[in-house]
């Protein structure tokens, strides 16, 4: 098929096994599955987020530097290396920043029917996205900028976990324009905050789809 690759000289000689193990079957590989269970201590911001999420509320945090809103909050604005302490409540509506139509099964999620859509969800008023499943939507109909809303689990199944939202479904509202969707819309959102047309403390009024 292709040129032979010579062995390095030092490795070219065949290995001579000692007589007493010369006829023993060679072990080429051994599989030793292991598991590790651990307690997750989320830290202040993630704990507040998960606690609120257990009440079907979505919390973000606002940057003290320029008002950008992070959800889920991690207690820090990585751009400036400053702590974020102010909480903002966000609606369970937003748009798709971008997405993937996945045709391959993933470990631990046998329940997902293929193909499924995983998308970056940008909540109204938030400036970063997070991963969410898109449902009640044909894969061919999914679009960057498509407006979506959360479909929550039944109240008796709500816990402090991201799995509370079963999936995000299309709302049928007009799409967010491509150049305003996801991270591309950040500059415009900041400008709107600056001139007071969409103050960041009222995320719904900063809805980029309302234009």
């Amino acid at each position, binding site marked *: 098929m*292709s040129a032979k690759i010579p062995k*390095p000289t030092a490795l070219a000689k065949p290995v001579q096994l000692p007589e007493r193990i010369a006829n023993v079957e060679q072990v080429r590989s051994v599989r030793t599955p292991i598991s590790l269970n651990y307690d997750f201590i989320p830290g202040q911001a993630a704990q507040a987020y998960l606690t609120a999420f257990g009440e079907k509320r979505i919390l973000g945090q606002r940057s003290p530097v320029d008002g950008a809103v992070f959800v889920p909050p991690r207690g820090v*604005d990585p751009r400036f290396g400053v702590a974020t302490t102010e909480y903002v409540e966000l609606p369970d509506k937003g748009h798709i920043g971008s997405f993937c139509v996945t045709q391959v099964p993933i470990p631990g999620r046998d329940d997902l029917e293929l193909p499924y859509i995983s998308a*970056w969800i940008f909540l109204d008023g938030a400036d970063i996205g997070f991963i969410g499943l898109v449902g009640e939507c044909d894969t061919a109909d999914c679009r960057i900028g498509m407006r979506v809303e959360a479909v929550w689990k039944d109240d008796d199944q709500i816990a402090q976990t991201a799995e509370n939202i079963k999936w995000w479904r299309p709302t049928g509202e007009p799409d967010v324009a491509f150049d305003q969707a*996801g*991270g591309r819309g950040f500059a415009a959102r900041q400008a709107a905050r600056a001139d007071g047309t969409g103050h960041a403390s009222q995320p719904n009024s900063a809805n980029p789809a309302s234009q």
Partner: protein
Amino acid sequence: MGKERCAVIGIGQTKYASTRGDVSMAGLVREAAYRALEDAEMTWQDIDAVVLGKAPDFFEGVMMPELFLADALGCAGKPMLRVHTAGSVGGSTALVATTLVQAGIHDRVLLVGFEKQSESNAMWALSLPQPFSVSINAGAGGYFSPIIRQYMEVSQAPELIGCLVAFKDRQHALKNPYAHLHQKDLTFEQVVDSPMLWEPIRYSETCPSSDGACAMVLGNEATADAADKPVAWVQATAMRSEANNFPGRNDVSPLASRQCAQDLYRQAGIQNPRAEIDMLEMYVPFSWYEPMWLESLGFAEDGQGWRLVEDGSTQLDGGDLPVNCSGGVLSSNPIGASGTIRFAEAALQVRGLAEERQVDGVRRALGHAYGGGAQYFAMWIVGSEKP
């Protein structure tokens, strides 16, 4: 205060394959290291220190493998350093080793990048559940597919550009005896007809899962001047990183990537990379990253990188800016070694030792690696002339 000059003096690679069942991890790294030593016409005794890189430990589930690999790399009692920067690690490893020489700490350093994917489960390792996020991201393809989708929309590139890249790299791989994939009967139609895995990424547009190791011997100026074979001088090095999710992030062409490239060109005195760099080895695990990185690295205007693919500029055969003559990550992906291979193949081209995959008259070549959520970057420029 000047720094020591540094050059690539020896290069060694293993044959890349889905399973190198004939060797252990130790045997794998030793094979690459031996070849690098032979190429450098050195022995273990000549090496002052070893730098080792691989993807995160939980891929194979062997914690701090550098400790048990020290013996196999002939460095018992010698300094050894481990590098961690996710997928870019193979490149970062070369840069750390370069720093040790340039700082005058060591005269001759052996560096090795490796991965034994057959003993790991990268898909599992890259899909770990976290309480504040739903567990639906399907490995690296699931992560990069939405970014590629944005590029396709921004650039309005023809739909089959990714397939052209994949076909080109697999053709290049046929000229590289070390490449994992040797698909000599592959047709462009087969690439196009391949099923979608992470739409818009086809199976044919993704990298394979490989075992392999790549090693280099770096030396200071005195060592390089004494070498019989041609050497590749390190003319510029740069590393940058950024968070993988922040407001306004350009995830198609991250700021860290652009700044890393600009720093590199400034060091090398390059004004026009397209004209002054003769070939590129870039980290392209998914085909669309070739046009995306060509733009980010300044070889094309934003949104225009795909034109270099379409017009054949990036082909070994007849292109004026050949990209991934080795077959690239799309043809061999031992993750921790993949960056090292890019850096090493750039050096091989400069030394004129790339055999069938040699580009004529390479004076300057760029090696590139990226990792994480396209957030860690490592690059170098090597050349036939001293910096």
